[in-house]
Structures are given as C-alpha cells and as structure tokens.
C-alpha cells in the first residue's frame, strides 16, 4: 500500500467531486423547500396580496380545520392511488411480455413504443387528450357505435390521462426486474407442477415487488403534484396542485402551507415503501 499522501489526495479529489452536487442538493433543493415552509408562517395583506412578514400559524390552522381542504386532499390522494394501481396493472403484463416473451426486433420496437411518449412534450400530450376526449373527439366517435360515450372532461379523464402520462415510469423498473428474473426459477416452478397463475403469484410477483414499489413512487408523487393535466382535461375538478397554483397569485403563504401537504404525503409514502424494502436495491 502506498503512503498516506496519495490517499489524502484521493479523498480531496472525492470531496471536490462531491461538493458541487451536494451543495446543489443542499442549497437549491432543500434550501428552497425550507424557504417555502418558512413562508407558510407569514401572512398576506388581504388587499394588495403583498406578503406580510408576521409570524403566525393561521395558514396551517385553516388547512386543518377547513373541510374543503380535507376534501381536496383526499381527492388528490385518491387520484394518486388510482393512477398508481392502474399503472401497476398495465405495466405488469406489458413488461412481462417485453422481458420474457418478445425477442429481438419486437422487444426493441416495444421499448421504443413505451419510451416514445416521454419524448413528446407534456403539454402536447395533455392537449392531445383534451382533443380526443372532447364532445366531438376520437373517444366519443369510437364508442358511439357501441352506444357508449366517453368520460368527457372531469375526474375520470384526469385519472386516465395521468395514468397514461406516468406509465413509462412504472414499466421501466418492472421490465428491468423481470429481465433479471432467472429463467430456471420459472422452469422450476413449472416442473413442480405450478400453473401460470401460481407461478405469477409465488415466483414472479415477489421478484418484481421492489420494482413495482419503486415505480409506484414515481406515479404516486408525480400524480400528487400535478395540476396542468387536471386543468386541461379535469373539467371543474380541483386538486391540491390547482389550489396551490391559484393561491400563489393571491396568497403565497397559504399556497406554501398547502404545498406542505403533498410533501408530507410523499414522505409518508416513501417511508412506507422503504419499510417494504423497495429502496434497498437502489
């Protein structure tokens, strides 16, 4: 082993390498969160909307006592859970097909198909859905011969579009997990007489559970914070993000207090997921 000098040198280099990103994380990311939380304890002049720096906790009290915020929080939570479940249900068979059944060109084509929506702009996709879900849109036109009508603009449309937008974030980790799943495991299961369903339940699912949970972190937290999709296809629906967006112009401290809600929800969710062991492999 060489003398201590080179080890110190390596340490210095490591420090130089890590300092900028850590500073970025600490100052820009956590710092802005701290400022946000701090401003939640201020108030506004009700006439000019100027922020008044008087320390008080009224905003949080409003949040906890006003039933409308509870309703909106529960609705937002429901949307995030629904989107996550839909994406998990869609991603499992899709990722399984890509990882275990399709091969070569097929798999590449599917991979591109899954990733392609990520290349298009978020707004473009949301507006495309607005056009499709409209009164004279594609969805209604397709359903009309069956005697059905589409969901129109509203909460179901918001869930649908959010599920579409975040699906790739669920498919990719599940695909990676399934690809790593050793073939002998599946063969052994079949040799021992397990049917497809039983193999799925006892062999595949436990193997992809961490990936499913990791994917769900994306779908859950992205849905919690979204407000544009709801604004575009959600009709009169109001989610946390919309309330924050509309309060930012009028009452910044209340908006800051409101944004603490999804932060707390995501922290709780992350803690739960971590407890389930999904983050160990990251």
């Amino acid at each position, binding site marked *: 082993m060489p003398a201590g000098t080179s080890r110190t040198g390596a340490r210095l280099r490591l420090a130089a390498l890590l300092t900028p990103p850590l500073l970025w994380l600490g100052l820009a990311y956590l710092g802005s969160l701290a400022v946000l939380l701090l401003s939640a304890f201020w*108030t*506004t*002049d*009700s*006439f*000019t*909307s*100027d922020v*008044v720096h*008087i320390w*008080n*906790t*009224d905003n*949080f*009290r*409003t*949040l*906890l*006592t*006003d039933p*409308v915020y509870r*309703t*909106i929080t529960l609705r937002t939570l429901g949307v995030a859970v629904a989107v996550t479940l839909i994406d998990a249900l869609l991603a499992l068979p899709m990722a399984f097909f890509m990882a275990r059944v399709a091969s070569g060109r097929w798999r590449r084509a599917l991979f591109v198909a899954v990733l392609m929506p990520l290349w298009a702009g978020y707004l473009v996709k949301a507006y495309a859905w*607005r056009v499709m879900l*409209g*009164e*004279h*849109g594609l969805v209604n036109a397709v359903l009309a011969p069956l005697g059905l009508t589409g969901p*129109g*603009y509203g909460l179901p449309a918001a869930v649908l579009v959010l599920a579409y937008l975040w699906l790739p974030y669920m498919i990719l980790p599940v695909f990676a997990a399934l690809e790593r799943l050793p073939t002998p495991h599946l063969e052994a299961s079949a040799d021992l007489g397990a049917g497809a369903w039983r193999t799925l339940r006892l062999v595949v699912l436990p193997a992809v559970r961490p990936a499913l949970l990791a994917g769900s972190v994306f779908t859950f937290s992205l849905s919690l914070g979204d407000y544009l999709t709801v604004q575009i296809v*959600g*009709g*009169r629906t*109001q989610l946390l993000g919309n*309330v924050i967006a*509309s*309060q*930012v*112009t*009028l*009452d910044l401290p209340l908006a800051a207090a409101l944004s*603490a809600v999804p932060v*707390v929800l995501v*922290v*709780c969710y*992350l*803690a739960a997921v*971590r*407890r389930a062991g999904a983050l160990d492999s990251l």
Partner: protein
Amino acid sequence: MRNTNVWKAAAAATVLLLAVGCGSGGSGGGGDDRGGGFRAPDVPMKKTLGKGEGQVNIIAWAGYAEDGSNDPNTDWVHPFEKQTGCKVNTKVAGTSDEMVSLMKTGQYDTVSASGDATLRLIASGDAAPVNTKLVPNYKDIFAGLKKQPFNSVDGQMYGIPHGRGANLLMYRTDKVKPAPDSWRAVFEDAPKHAGKVTAYDSPIYIADAALYLMKTEPQLGIKNPYALDQKQLDAAVALLKKQHGNIGEYWSDYQKEVTAFKGGDSVIGTTWQVIANLTKAEKAPVKAVLPKEGATGWSDTWMVAAKAEHPNCAYKWLDWIVSPKVNAQVAEYFGEAPANAEACKETADPKHCATYHADDESYYKRVHFWTTPVKQCLDGRTNVQCTDYAQWTRAWTEIKG
C-alpha cells in the same frame, strides 16, 4: 433500524403540523385596517419624456395588443414598433389576480389593469402616478372616465383609461333554445345544460351571482355586487355551489373557452365580446348577449410600473393605445367602448360607439365594473362590515370544492 428513523421523522412532521394547527390565537386575515381614506404610497411621477429604450414589456388582456398573429388585418403593434422603435413584448394575462402578481415581479413596464387590480397596484406601490401631460391623447378621453375612484387618488391619475364594456352571456345557438335573455340560464336553469355550463374562474365571478341575486332576491338587500356582508356572500356562495354541479369546466384562459364552445363541450356561460368574435371566426354558431339583469364589466386603465425599466417606451405605448385610430381598432376588436371620444369617428362600423354606449353614462350604471371588495362597504353602509377579497378567494375555493 433506518426504517424506524424515517418513521420517526414522518411522525415528527405530522405532530408539528398538528401542533401548529392547534396553536396560535386568531389574528385572522392580514393587516387590513385601512380606515376611510385610501392612502397611496409615495411613488415619484415621471416629469419629462426621454428617448425610447428600444423595447417595452406589457401585460395585457387578450386582444389588447394584437400583432397580426390572430388576424393578419388586426395589427397595431407593428406600426407602433415602426414609429417609435420600441419593440413590444406582450404577456397575456387571464385574470386581474394574474396581472397583479405579474406586476409584482417587476419585469413589466405597463399593464392594462381593470378596476379590481388598479387600486391594489396603487396601494402596493407597484404602479406609479401617470403624468397625463406626457400623454397628448389624454385630452380627448371621455370626461366620465377621468379621475374616477378606480384610476386616481386625490385627483392624481394613475393611468390612462383604455375602454370599458360588459361581461356577456354567450351560448350555442344550435344547442340553447329558446335564446336566453337572463342570467337565470346559468343559475336556476343550468341543469338544462348540465355539464356544459361554463363560468369565469376567478373569485370576482362571485359578483355575477350577487348581481343576479340583487335582481331576483331583493329581500337580501344587495345594492352593489362588490359590497356583500357575510349573509349576502353566503347567499351568493350557495347559488354558485348549486351552479358548480352543472359546470363542465371553468375558464380563465380565453383560448380554452374558444375551443370549448367550438367543440360543444361548453354551450352556455359568461364571456367577453372578443371571445365571442373569435369563436364565431372559427365557424361555431354562438351568440353573446347582455342579459336583462345587467352585467358585471370592466373599465380598464393602462398603468405604468413604479420600477419600469423602459418608462419612455411605456409612455409612448400609453399614448399610442388611446390614440383615436388605435383606440378605435382595439375597441372594435375586443368589443368594448373606446375611451377616446375622437375614436368614435375612426371605427369601421360608424355606429360602434352608439352600440357600445361609449359616452352613455346612464347605460354604464347598469354595468357594475370590477372593483376589489374591501371590509368597508362600497355601497356606503356603515352598520355592517363587508367581506373583503381574501374572504371571496376562500369562498371561491370552497365553491369549487
């Protein structure tokens, strides 16, 4: 073990929130103890006009700063740029609240503020008094628009009047029959078009409900839709909550309303004349009417930012936008009454000023211009405290549920 730490952190955060929620005495609302008189902060006024700075950043209502991109024949921005050398950067805002918050960024030189934004901008010191001597076209502005409570303080103008008009009721002529002539169509009769009714997405829309109640439920005693005591506000909120069930979507982005009416997703609701014109241009069968109850409306004023980076270009824009020809163009395009009396001679439709009652003050008694509700009742009542805009804002969140 790491897991328990995370749980502790999460639990601590929750406890913090709860503790915060239960603590604190009720200091309620912000520091809003202004007495009778309105005092404007001391902001210096421009004394002389210098050379243009090469550009100007403006906040405008849709249709106020047209550069030909919507309609090649509607362009008064390029001629301005050519004449003054001031390049125009336009930011279209959808609501007065948006305008107020954009002005607070300090990145804009001038804004076409409605009456519910003007006083807020003056009070916060974001708008500067305007030297009308530097705006030659000011002399031709209708006397009825000069030195009004919403654009001046103690006789000092804080902007140049632009024009005024009413919020209208728009409907699809193929879907809504018979033709509506009352706001009843979006309140009691809204279930007829359940899921296809639209409304303006701003707390100020509460005044539309108050106006309707003013006519239909006189026992509530509403005299001014912007001066509502708690009981009157509750009545308006109840009406709007009932309406909410029939709303398809709210709008504050004018383009969103155009596409919604064009596609048939909205068939009836409140609008501006310019939106009706744009929707008609897209070949959708719509009509906009002024219902018999009268309407809420706006009287707009071009204001200059206190910290304007391009004040000379801003003054040039003020003078340009109220010059007879341009003011006539804007008024006809947006569908409003011009502020410049001379503009009435320049309109393509010679009857435009008559149609929009440009100098008919008695007509505008029926139109209730947007203004910011404050605790001190605007209708002169002193035995009761009125609800202020912060309360309206909370009520609006509650209405939308």
